[in-house]
Structure formats: C-alpha cells, structure tokens
C-alpha cells in the first residue's frame, strides 16, 4: 500500500517534466520508514527465540563439515493460481540456505500493471509499456508474452476516491479483462484507500472466484476482516502488510488466522524500504521474521513479499544529474539491488516494474532451488590474465 500512495502522488503530477514526477515520494518513504526507526532501533536484540535451531557440534580438528543447522519450523507453502490459471507456489522452506536444503520453490516476480494509464511512471518503464497502457489486459499480456512474467499484479489505482473513483463494479470488470487476457496467477491490489479497498477487493475477489489470486492487502488500518472473508469465500490468498515491525506482523497474522485463514492462505509484506532509504530496517525485520519462523514461531511461518517498486521513488533512481550518470541505467539497478537484498533475507515474491530488473533478479533467485556444487561453474583460476582491459 505504501507503493500505492506514491503512485497516487505520481498521478497528481502527470503533466510535470520528468524530474518532478516523483517529487513527493521521499516524504512518503520517510513516513513509512519512521515506524521502523521508532520501533526497531533500541530493541533490536530482544528477539524472542522460541526454539533455537540446532547447531551441530564441533568436528574433529582439521576436518571441514558444512555448518548445516536443523530448524524446528517450516514456512507454509502458498499456492497462487487455480481454476483457469497456471499455478505458482511460494515458500515451503525448511532451512535458511540452500546448502542446508534447497528451497522447494524459486522466488517469483510479479509485474506491475495498472487499471488506468500511468503517464507518471518512470521513463525507462514507459518505454516498454506505453503502447498498452490504455488496457490493463493488453498490458498484462505484454508483461507475460514479451517479458516472461510468471505473475501479474493488477493495481486498481483508479478506484481511489481522489483518482478516478471507479466503482467496485468497474474494478471487477478490469479484473475480468486481465483474467481473460492472461493465464498467470494475479495479485490484486487496491488504491491504498483504507475505506474503499476492502469493498473493491471484495468485488474483485468475487469476479475472480476460484482463481486463487493474492488480495493486497490486509492491514491493521482497514477492515481486514472483510478482506479475509473475501479470500475465504472466493478461494484466494491474502497479503498481510505490516510496517517494518515484527510484532505488528505477528498480531495481524494472528487476527487473520482467527478469521479462518490458514498459513497457506497468507503472504506477509513486512515492508520494503528502498536502497538508501532505510533498506537496513527491512533487512533486519525480514531476517528476524524468517529466523523466528524457522525457529518455530507459528505466527510468522508464511512466505514474504516485497514491494520492490518502491526503489523507483529513490532520487538516485530518477533524478537527472549528470555526475551520477544516465538515469536510464540507475533506475533498473536500484530496483535490482533493492529486490536482491530482500531476496537474500528470505523474501519469496517481488512486485517489480522493469523487465531487465526482473530478469536479473529471477536468474539469481533460480539458483536457490539447486543443490550446492551441482552447477557447472566457469573456470576462473586464471582470472587475472583472462580479464581484458
């Protein structure tokens, strides 16, 4: 939802020149960053350890034994896509790293698509999608067919009361359009309006009945019960969003489970602060969340999601400045490194914008499912002389 707020701001600025497109993002980012500062700094070390993983005993001197731990906990496996959809699975890990046990499912990227044309999107993105922005169906199709998207996120931005105030019925029609256009699983996002989102998501969920979409999102600021019920009634999963706060995340997950959702129906969004704008808070929270889950905390044993698109709000990604080099390169790389950093802390699904960022992130993520020392690696033993220039 933080991303939604930013994109809303973008919309208000659509006729500005490039440098103004993201004017307000920094404030938004700060806003979302602050709870992190207040709640995480100062209590970083009081993590509650439920059942610490078992560390093997010291081997005989001179012998190298891979430091493989055993963990009492397991991450739930969440299925997305059913009915007319392909299926994608998230999570299912029983270990932190692949040398302990490769993860059963690779990290997944879902492409951002919007229900209204988004002239405010950064130029490197518009370049790829400007021809299809009038129709979310075409947009989704392009993401899938031209850029190999495994999933698509349809953001119902247009339903925002301050945007176009589209009705929940319009939203349902957009969902149907996208469902017709592609057969990959969908994430369905609202506009970020806490009053309207639950109503919109409910209608959208109904339109996509049985397709096992991910409803984004449920959080403590809105009627999460309605969102949970919509998921249960129409067979979807729910994104549980907390702002860089492990305890808030636990509470929300528990509430959602009380409504009848199972861990297999929940994906967590612990909030992604962009590279250079508090990413270290996300690193800490996501690391703690995954460790707690593997150590047995049942309230946190769900896959995690990252709103990696946040990276595009960073000045380094968009601001024209000759001494920083072309924005064309800086944007994608900012998105990659933001997402990558989250992936290395355990995130399972990424909402992203740029095709090259998606490709590079996926390539690294795919290695997580393979066994240690089973890949053919290049011979680098003479790299000093092999490297040209």
């Amino acid at each position, binding site marked *: 939802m933080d991303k939604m707020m930013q994109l809303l701001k973008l919309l208000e600025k659509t006729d500005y020149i490039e440098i103004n497109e993201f*004017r307000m*993002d920094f*404030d938004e980012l*700060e*806003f979302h*960053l*602050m709870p992190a*500062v207040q709640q*995480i*700094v*100062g209590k*970083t*070390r009081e*993590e509650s350890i439920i059942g610490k993983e078992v*560390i093997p005993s*010291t081997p005989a001197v*001179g012998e*190298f034994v891979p*430091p493989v731990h055993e963990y009492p906990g397991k991450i739930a496996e969440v299925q997305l896509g059913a009915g007319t959809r392909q299926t994608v699975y998230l999570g299912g890990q029983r270990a932190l*790293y*692949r*040398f302990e046990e490769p993860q059963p499912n690779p990290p997944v990227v879902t492409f951002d698509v919007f229900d209204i044309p988004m002239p405010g999107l950064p130029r490197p993105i518009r370049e790829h999608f400007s021809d299809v922005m009038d129709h979310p169906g075409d947009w989704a199709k392009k993401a899938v067919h031209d850029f190999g998207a495994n999933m698509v996120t349809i953001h119902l931005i247009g339903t925002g009361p301050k945007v176009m105030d589209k009705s929940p019925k319009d939203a349902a029609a957009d969902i149907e359009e996208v469902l017709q256009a592609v057969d990959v699983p969908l994430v369905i996002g609202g506009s970020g309006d806490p009053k309207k989102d639950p109503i919109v998501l409910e209608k959208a969920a109904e339109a996509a009945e049985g397709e096992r979409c991910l409803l984004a999102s449920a959080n403590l600021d809105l009627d999460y019960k309605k969102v949970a019920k919509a998921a249960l009634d129409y067979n979807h999963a729910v994104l549980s969003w907390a702002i860089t706060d492990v305890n808030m995340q636990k509470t929300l997950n528990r509430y959602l489970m009380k409504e009848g959702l199972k861990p297999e129906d929940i994906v967590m969004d612990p909030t992604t602060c962009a*590279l*250079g*704008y*508090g*990413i*270290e808070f996300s*690193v*800490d929270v996501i*690391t*703690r969340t995954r460790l707690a889950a593997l150590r047995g905390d049942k309230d946190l044993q769900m896959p995690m999601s990252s709103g990696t698109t946040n990276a595009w709000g960073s000045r*380094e990604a968009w601001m024209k400045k000759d001494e*920083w*080099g*072309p924005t064309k*390169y*800086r944007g994608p*790389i900012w998105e*990659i*490194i933001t997402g*990558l*950093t989250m992936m*290395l802390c355990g995130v399972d699904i990424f909402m992203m914008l740029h095709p090259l960022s998606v490709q*590079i992130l996926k*390539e*690294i993520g795919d*290695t997580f499912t*393979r066994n*240690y020392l089973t*890949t053919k*690696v*290049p011979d*680098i*033993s003479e790299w*000093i*002389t*092999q*490297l040209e*220039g």
Partner: protein
Amino acid sequence: MIVTAMDVYKLLPKTNCGICGEASCMAFATKLSEKEMELSLCTQMMDEELEKLKNILAPAVSEVTIGTGDKAITIGGDEVLYRYELTYYNPTALVVDVSDDLEESELEERVKTIKDTEFERTGEKLTLDAIAIRNKSGNSEKFVETVKKVKDANLPLLLCSFNPDSMKAALKIVGSDRPLIYATTEYNIEEMAALALEYDCPITLFIPNDLDKMKELSNVLRSKGIKDIVLDPGTFVDAGIGDSLDNFIMIRRQAIEENDEDFRFPIMGVPAVTWISSKEDKVTTGMREATIAATLMNKYADILIMHGADIWELIPVLTLRQSLYTDPRKPQAVDPGIYEFGDVNENSPVLMTTNFALTYYTVEGDLKSGNVNCYLLVLDTGGRAVDVSVAGNQLNAKSVTDLIRNSGIENGVNHQKLIIPGLAAPVSGEIEDESGWEVMVGPRDSSGIPDFLTEKW
C-alpha cells in the same frame, strides 16, 4: 559471538582506580565490549587476566589492515551473522582493478578515475578504498613498471599475480606499504607464503569452490606463522553465484558459530570476473557486476574487486555499503539547533526541519547543491520525520516556538518569518499564533527549496 560488558568486567581488577579514564571498571568494561576503547588503557591488569581478556575481545573474524598511514584500510572484525544482533564492523572495502598492459595514458586516466570517485549522500563522502594491480601481461617487468606508477596514487594496493617472481619484484618496490598479496593458490603456496612473511604483508588464499582444501591450506599458512589472511573462495557469475553464496555463508558461519580458526578471516569477492567472456553489452555487464557485488556484500564480503568504474554502477554499491554498515544501536538523529548555510546575514531566510538524520541530510544536500544562503532550524523530534512528528505531536506550536526562542535566531535576523516544510502545513496557523512569527509553508520535497526562495523570498 557477542561479548557482554559482564564477561569483560569479571576479568578487570574491579578497583575503579580511574587510570583508564573511565569512572569505574564497569564503565570501562562497557566501552571495551562495544569496541570503543583499547584494552591497553587499563594498566592495572594481571598477565593471566590480560591474556584471557585479549582472547575474548578478539573479534570472531580477525581484522586485516591493508596499506599504511591515514589511507590504510581495515577489513574483517565481525562478531555476528546478522546485523540486527549487534552491528557489522569495518565496511566492505571497494577496490577497482588496473591492468599492467594498459597504455600509459589509459593507466593514468583509470587511476585518476578511481581516486576521484566520490558520491556524497546523507552527509558522508563515499569513496573507493584501494587499487588492485593486475599482472595481466604475466611479465614481471611490466608488472613492476605499473606498480611504480600506481604507487604515487597513494591508495592501498592489491598486487594481483599468481607468479611468485612477479610478486617478489613488485614487493621489492612497495613491500613496505603493506599491500595485499593476491594470491596464494595450492600451486604457489610455499613461495607466496615466504614472501608474505618476508615483507610482513597480508595474503589472500584463493581456492575456488573447495572449502575442504581452503581449510587445509589456511591451516598451512597459519602454521607458518601468518596471521593476516584473506579468503577468496571464488566468485562465480550466472548460476554459479549460488555456489559462491554458499561458500561465503559457510565460511562466516564457521568463523562465528564454530570458532573454526582456519576460517576466522575476512572474505574477498571478485565481481570483476563478470567481465570475462560476457556476451552482453557494456551497460548490462556493468549492471550484472554491481548485482554480484551487492549479492556478496549482503552475505559477508569484506573486500570486493570491481572492474567497472562507471559512477552509475558504483553508486548503488556504495549506497548499499553505507546502509548495511550503519549501526543499528544508534538512533538516526542529528543534533537539534541552528545551522547556517552559505553566507548568512540579518536578512537571510530561516527554514525549519526535523532532526531525523535522513530528513536532515536530504535537506542539507539540497541547500548546498542549490547554493542557498539561509539559516536552518533543526527541531528535536526524537529522530522523527516531518509528517510523522506532526502526527505524533512532537512538531507543534510549542516545540517550534521554543526552538525559535532558544536557538538565538531572533538575534541573528531582523525579520520574523519562518519557512516550514510543506508536510507541516497543518500546524502552520498554530505556530504563527504561539510564536508571533509569520509562517510560510515551503515545498513538500526539499529539492524545491531553491526555486521556492527565488520565487518567494
């Protein structure tokens, strides 16, 4: 391994004599455990306790220093696997390579680029740390020639050659500057180890993808009395990055959880290998290299050799380093009070912001780059951003009025106009009422300040 103040205190003399400069042994113990003071400051220690303390205070990953003088860099020193548990120490050193078969002018230009690379963010100048000279030619004379030229750059050096003759020739020139020897492998270990000992230089052990052998040879180096070792388990691109990550993580786990002496050393990554036989264009290859660098930095790389030196590629890597190595124990706030920018006089505008570090430094950066002359009042909001402190009522009529009264700004200017951040607009009226100053609502993003002042001041 986290050492607590209590662990340390038990071994101190407990006389509270104060010679160390701290009021009590407990205070000294706290500082020691946080690595803020040197053990040698307590002159009252018994030998046996001293040895024990040295042992428990030695970091899980040993520190290795490269170079001498004020440009020297120290790598390693980490105690934990996850930064939230404590903090990471000694930011990853970023090194860019030069080849010994460059034309003289190319070499000069590249060295200059490396030296001049600088990126300022949140009040900190982020720069590169060292130069790696690559014996690409395989020829020891060419290597020496290049070493002589690059020496003048006055940055710590990495000498990269698997040929002991080249290494020896280069060490004759710069051996007293503590360059990092790169590298010993299983094929040259006797000669290279001898050079490391002769010149008292740190040495890299390069064993691609074989931790058994790495452990064995690290042990060989240690048994020769070599203490300053850097481990390079190989950087593999494409699908091979999975193995690199596994190796890095296992080495660090061995050091921190298993106390495995053979692995208690800093780890090196070489993202530069991305450029070997890359079939993609330069830009994509540069992005991939930065990606590899970020991957390894996230998982324990203490030093990285890069080949691409374009600023757009280095900025995200430098930024990630700055982020990962901030100390999670320290609040992200700056001192409140009055700050001056440019030439100020009694007519200068007075702006206000909060003391959240990210907010402050962003505003500061915009004022500087816009060459703005002004006063900036920084409000103590306990390190909260503008909109958050408006919502949380730390930024209110009273706190702002107190700031105006106590900062002394009333003596500095002959007007009574305060420019507040756009996000503080909801409280502009009450600030006016309480302080008696005229309040102007500024832009929402501080990058708009220069234009705002041109228009409205």
